[in-house]
């Protein structure tokens, strides 16, 4: 069942069309990554979905929204979350909880619960002005889910964090996945790959690719053989590539990647050739193109 359906969404800033017609649906219980380079339109899309921005045309229909106000169904974490610095973390969560319609008692309980879940319970009585970037990010996630929304939208939740913070936030999202639908934007493929089931690929305001992780991989991934020789990697690789129908060859410093249709056949042939000529092989690896490559391919199209 779709939580939200987006149809023909468009947005223009002055003379530049930033979103050029988006259509997609988000299915309940899925974690979806909105992927794209800087300036692809990720933040604008999320802002429209959160109601902070109004689309020029197109519709956003939330399942179960009353009179077009869908704010009680969503939780949103902006890219650069700002809080009231004079409040403590606990006060802020209780405040947002009450604004979202929880009773005093519920808000208190839920705030405490979330402070522990996101791991800032120790700092709950400290002013937010004194929080570190990572703590603010986690407080931001906590406020986004305080009213148990159907859809949680996180705008670049890990981009500004150090490796530890990023690890923790990704683990937190892993936990959230079990409770709600998540839509989060990122330009880092690994993060998307790690926690997401589905990917929406945004480029220049258009959806250029969408689907589950495995669909995308099947569609775009190619088998390849990576070769590293002690010397003359490029010469040897080119000599080898003549032996077998290689779709393309990419030489990257000391490493050569040969893209092939049939890995097994190529493997046998290459290895025989290498041993018979006694070439100084250092590394022979069979792999598939990563999502990084898919990303590059889609963006360059």
């Amino acid at each position, binding site marked *: 069942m779709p939580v939200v359906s987006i149809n023909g969404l468009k947005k223009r800033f002055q003379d530049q069309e930033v979103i050029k017609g988006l259509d997609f649906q988000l299915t309940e219980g899925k974690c979806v990554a909105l992927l794209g380079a800087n300036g692809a339109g990720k933040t604008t899309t999320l802002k429209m979905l959160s109601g902070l921005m109004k689309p020029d045309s197109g519709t956003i229909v939330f399942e179960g929204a009353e009179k077009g106000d869908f704010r009680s169904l969503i939780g949103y974490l902006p890219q650069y979350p700002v809080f009231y610095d004079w409040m403590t973390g606990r006060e802020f969560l209780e405040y*947002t909880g009450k604004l979202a319609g929880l009773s005093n008692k519920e808000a208190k309980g839920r705030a405490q619960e979330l402070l522990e879940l996101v791991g800032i319970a120790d700092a709950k009585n400290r002013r937010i002005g004194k929080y570190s970037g990572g703590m603010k990010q986690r407080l931001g996630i906590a406020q986004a889910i305080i009213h148990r929304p159907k859809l949680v939208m996180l705008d670049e939740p890990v981009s500004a964090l150090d490796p530890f913070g990023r690890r923790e936030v990704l683990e937190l999202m892993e936990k959230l996945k079990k409770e709600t639908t998540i839509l989060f934007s990122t330009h880092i493929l690994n993060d998307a790959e790690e926690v997401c089931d589905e990917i929406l690929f945004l480029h220049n305001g258009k959806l250029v690719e969408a689907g589950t992780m495995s669909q995308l991989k099947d569609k775009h991934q190619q088998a390849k053989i990576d070769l590293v020789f002690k010397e003359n990697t490029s010469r040897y690789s080119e000599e080898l590539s003549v032996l077998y129908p290689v779709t393309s060859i990419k030489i990257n410093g000391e490493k050569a990647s040969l893209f092939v249709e049939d890995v097994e056949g190529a493997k046998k042939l290459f290895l025989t050739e290498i041993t018979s000529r006694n070439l100084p092989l250092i590394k022979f690896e069979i792999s598939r193109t990563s999502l990084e490559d898919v990303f590059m391919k889609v963006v360059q199209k």
Partner: protein
Amino acid sequence: MKQWLTLYKKELLEMVRNYKWIWVPLTFILIAVKEPMTLYYMPQIIDSLGGLPEGAVIELPVPSAGEALAASLSQYNTLGVLIIVLITMGVIAGERKSGVAGIILVKPVSYARFVTAKWAGVMLLIWFSYFCGYFLSWYYVGILFEFISFTDFIQSFFVYGIWLTFVLTITIFFNSFLQSPGAVGFITMGITILLSLVSSSLSHLLDWSPALLSVYTNTLIMGNGFPEELMPTILISLFMIILSLFASIAIFRKRELA
């Protein structure tokens, strides 16, 4: 109503945390009390500054109690209005500029409650401070000159308070669509000054202008009774206050918040 109270309590708490509950009343007291004091001690002040040269005779008319109290109010007309604008110019615009509004208004918060809670928060602070200042001024005028009847004091307090409320509401109104607190402050000050100037120079045409409330208040304090233009002016001012408040809500609802 519950949500409104939550928003309203947050406003009051914020003013506690950034000490507005201390410095705003203190400033209003200082501004108001300074006037009767200086008027009363003027001869001594001149003396202590070296006095007048031998033979010079300057008649310093002893001001009446009404004039002393009116002097306090005329200070509010400049400094008081300035403080109100300074305090109010960022209440919404500032939150939008910083980005915190992006978190708060994504929650199912009613725009009307959001705007009115902010308005009511500043209202309480200003009326409290204004009362403290004006009451003390009245008290000192009573001690140093003579006591003005308490009814006149209360009447003038409320009448002039309407003008302050008008300034405050206009500031909130510009908050609803300008993103920069500085711009809000500048425009509101400009409008207030312009309105005062135009109203006092063209008072025969605009004798129901809210800016003239201060003039009518003076008449009240001087013990000259209720001017006949006062009632319509009050009604028009209240109407404009309510209108700006509704307009603020309507505009705010339509604006993109991020």
